[in-house]
């Protein structure tokens, strides 16, 4: 049995700043690495591998030069990694990304389970897993916890806003996990050593997946960018003086006026 773990080379969102003038996100210089949620994806896939004897294959759409960033992912227990070179794809939208990933899953062959994060750290579109499922014609089992695989049947709890829903599904299917699904393992030194010998393949979208620029163009979504952002104008009131009690009263009065506190 073959499991594919879709992982993303994401921006470290805690390092993203907003340009005060244009309200655009400043992405230059922001470090990229395998995302936080992708560790949960890896943990899920590797746990299932250990329980069933399956093989786990990492799949990512990333710059070929980023392969070093996947060292820890490999050490966590992937058998191999396929990087689809994103060099020529400036900011592929979710539809294009899903098309590429689904085509790659088909090319890997005999895959019966695809594990994804519910949404990526940086893009947060939530669209990739359902679109992959749609393309493959497989069911989607989203927000899964307590996942068990027996034979061809997966059982899991779906973590929904309204509560937990216990579901059962038959392979092949697409599974998404959340950051609450599990606690990712910390690979040992031996894991890291073994990972050194694991194969990494780099595929080109056109040459290896047979997807032409026209095909991708047709899937490219229309995007409208709004950059108003949310601007919070602070009142910048300053209370100054020596008498702390008087200052506290002034502050309280101001908060009452602003209805931050009620009398």
């Amino acid at each position: 049995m073959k499991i594919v773990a879709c992982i993303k080379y994401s921006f470290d969102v805690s390092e993203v700043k907003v340009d005060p003038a244009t309200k655009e996100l400043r992405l230059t210089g922001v470090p990229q690495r395998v995302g936080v949620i992708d560790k949960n994806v890896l943990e899920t896939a590797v746990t299932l591998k250990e329980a069933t004897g399956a093989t786990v294959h990492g799949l990512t759409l990333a710059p070929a030069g980023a392969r070093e960033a996947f060292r820890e992912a490999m050490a966590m227990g992937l058998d191999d990694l396929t990087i689809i070179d994103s060099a020529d794809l400036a900011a592929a939208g979710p539809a294009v990304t899903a098309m590429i990933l689904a085509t790659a899953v088909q090319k890997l062959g005999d895959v019966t389970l695809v594990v994804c994060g519910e949404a990526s750290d940086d893009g947060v579109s939530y669209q990739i897993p359902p679109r992959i499922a749609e393309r493959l014609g497989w069911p989607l089992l989203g927000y899964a916890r307590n996942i068990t695989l027996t034979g061809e049947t997966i059982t899991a709890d779906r973590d929904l806003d309204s509560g937990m829903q216990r579901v059962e599904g038959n392979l092949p299917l697409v599974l998404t996990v959340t950051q609450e699904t599990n606690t990712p393992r910390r690979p040992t030194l031996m894991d890291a050593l073994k990972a050194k010998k694991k194969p990494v393949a780099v595929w080109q979208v056109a040459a290896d997946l047979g997807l032409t620029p026209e095909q991708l163009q047709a899937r490219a979504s229309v995007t409208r960018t709004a950059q108003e952002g949310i601007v919070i104008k602070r009142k910048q009131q300053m209370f100054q003086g020596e008498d702390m009690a008087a200052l506290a009263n002034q502050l309280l009065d101001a908060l009452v006026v602003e209805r931050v506190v009620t009398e």
Partner: protein
Amino acid sequence: MEKFDAIVVGAGPAGATAAYLLAQAGMQVVVIERGATPGSKNVSGALLFSQIYNELFPNFWESAPVERAIVGHSIAFLGQETSVTLDYRDLDPTHTPHNAYSVLRACFDPWMAQQAEDAGAMLLPGYTVERLLVENGRVTGIHAGGDDLLADVVVVAEGTRSQLLKQAGLRDDFYAGDVSIGVKEVIALPEEIITNRFQCLTADEGVAYTCVGHTGGVEGGGFLYTNKETLSVGVVVKIDALYKSQRQPHEILDEFKSHPFINRLVHGGKVVEYSAQAIHRGGVHLIPQLYGDGYVVVGSAARLLLNNVMTLRGMDVAVASAAAAAKAILAAREKGDYSRASLAAYEQFFKQTDVYQDMVTFKETYALLENKRLFNVYPDLISGVMDDMFSVKARPGKKAYRALRDNMHDELTLWQMLKDMAQIGRGLVR
């Protein structure tokens, strides 16, 4: 249990060099580095003196991520509101290799590590070596990331804070008086401003300042190096003196930066990084035991450093020591003997290097670093003399000696000054 020919602890200049040379000679080498990438944990100037790098990686500046070729070295004495600077410039831009290059360690260390990997070494970043494995006084491997790993020889290259040998009972702790703390900021400025402000011809040229004085009365010095789009500005001060002064390292750096001379150079820049790190003062008389059964210590883990007031050399010293150690290890491999006696060749090889010779040459310089007057009195004194010599004032002018005597006030006796001059002479002149 997995066994390697050699394990290198730390992927700084020393560790990467050892790994590179050993792997190149066909040894199975694994390098374990605590940072997520090499250089990510590092604090350094960083001015890289080319000589030894060029021997190891000919024309390295063409492919390695260097920032600017250092075509000018200056030493600046900072008085209260004055400065006296001595500038040296190599005005022929075709002189390669340049004496030094400025580098950012977060970029340069990965390049070094890559050379080692390309030679066949196996780099494992993101793991801290927690302890050495020792059997009957012989180092047999390391413990990291929950696993033991064995090797014929362990190269300890973990930098200044080196704890592993002490922990294993193989070495004493530091003497606090021999340790300084370096604090550094990286200050961003547009490339063009740096090029113009420091009178460089192109964005590939840069300069380096060593500064004496204005470090809050604490023995130490300051530095300012030009990178492509940033300046590296920092101070290195003695830890015991800093402790006595009850001041924080960043206060000393702030004070240094607020000096009008430095302030003009960093003006308009934005601090993008702050870091601090201990630094041993080095010195040939402080070199510890460099080897033992199954291990060698290289670079600043072996407290190897050269500070002669004018330049602070740690990286090239680290590389030189690692190259000497690698040579000894390869000889040990021939004999199949990694004992203390066999690895003793490391010390002999190291003593034959230019770096070691320089350490011997400047051994008297260390007394200077202890001389408070160098930092507290002389910068103002030199400034005062200069002021008297240059200025036209409503009082009779003076020749140098008179100006000097007048500026000595009560802070310095002639006898003391003569003694200091003799010390400076021994340290730097003859």
